[in-house]
């Protein structure tokens, strides 16, 4: 439908180049909106990453995730940098989910959300353990303490904590992404290639 030139080195089209920074800014801004206006206990800080992955594929998704954490590190908390790998994998999985056609039904999206959540928990656990000693300074640390008290190792408790909270957040993220994408105007769907 539409064309745009592509940078030779990174393989990103001008459309991807335009969309990814906006998606990153949305990741950062939305966390704030949902928590400050609606006061709901969900993060949604990877919705931009998931959207880009679904619309533009695994590479663009991974870059969005990775750079979101780099930006987070540049602006607010440098401690977010180690988790960039997790964010990249979230974008990568969203890209494959998009290629697989998960967007066609809501339950496939929910499933993709659960899978993403479990994998994200599995990758963040070792980072959380070796860099942060298993804690993040947030409320979920209580879960870590609980699992350790039940006999889990630091790594095990860290993974279990993630496995409890991540799939829920990611499932909600995927379902919102689904609701947004199916309601997109034709013109934009054509440009951002989800129609394929």
């Amino acid at each position: 439908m539409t064309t745009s030139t592509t940078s030779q080195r990174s393989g990103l089209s001008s459309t991807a180049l335009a969309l990814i920074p906006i998606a990153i800014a949305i990741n950062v801004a939305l966390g704030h909106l949902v928590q400050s206006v609606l006061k709901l206990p969900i993060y949604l800080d990877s919705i931009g990453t998931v959207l880009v992955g679904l619309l533009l594929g695994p590479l663009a998704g991974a870059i969005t995730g990775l750079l979101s954490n780099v930006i987070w590190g540049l602006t607010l908390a440098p401690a977010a940098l180690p988790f960039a790998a997790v964010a990249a994998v979230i974008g990568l999985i969203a890209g494959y989910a998009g290629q697989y056609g998960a967007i066609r039904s809501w339950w496939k999206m929910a499933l993709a959300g659960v899978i993403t959540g479990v994998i994200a928990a599995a990758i963040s656990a070792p980072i959380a353990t070796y860099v942060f000693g298993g804690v993040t300074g947030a409320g979920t640390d209580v879960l870590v303490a609980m699992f350790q008290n039940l006999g889990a190792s630091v790594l095990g408790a860290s993974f279990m904590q993630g496995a409890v909270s991540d799939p829920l957040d990611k499932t909600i993220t995927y379902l919102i992404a689904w609701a947004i994408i199916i309601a997109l105007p034709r013109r934009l769907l054509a440009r951002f290639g989800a129609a394929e």
Partner: protein
Amino acid sequence: MQRTGLFIERAGFLQRLNPLTKVTGVLLLIGATFLLPAPLTGAALTVGALLPLAFASLVAHRFLDVLVKTLLPVLISLALVQGLFFPTSDPTTVAVGPLLFRRAGLQFALDTGSRLLVVAGAPLLLFQTTHPGALVQALIQSGMPRSIGYIVLVALQLIPAISERAVGVAEAQRARGLETEGSVLQRIRGVLPLISPLIVGALVEAEERAMAIEARAFNAPGPKTWVRDIPDPPVERTARIGMLAALGALIVWRIASLFSG
């Protein structure tokens, strides 16, 4: 200068260095923290390297401020969770008031916390003393894809604008009777009307922005030039090679010591 992340405009020591030198320094510091024995290395590097550099760069106050604000909750949590619940066979405990801490847990918390000071502090000092534009230009000139640099810089400047837009969306929808102050159910119903306009509007804007990228010939073939020059004196190049060599030596030493037992 506005909206430039953590950067503080001062004329100090680190601000005069080439960004690549500082990036190399960060890599060396973090590498050393994980390769040399804890907790001594992390604490020593923070006191012996990061703090003096922060003072020499006239950002010590803000450096400590941000470091404490971002790390303090993590450190407290670390001490409580691992101090009280660390899985260990060592029965030694330390009583602090009514709480009975496990000695091995406290040791673990101390080791990790001391490393965290450098893991968070070194990049923080880099970002506080390096303008993001200069950092990205230096990285591109030494081989990073231009598109990655472009994305980082645009995202950095867009965050305040998108946050402002998020406030505007909330206002527009509340003015249409969207209840954001009611029950949990009502607030959940508000998620889509609040998020959709932000994202659909952003996608429309992305199309216009893609046109702007084309109009500025971003993807034009051929070599690129830069309107600004980032000085890179030979002494800094030598220093970078030295730091990389030191990092390499540390890695070799560590691997060798692992194999020798």
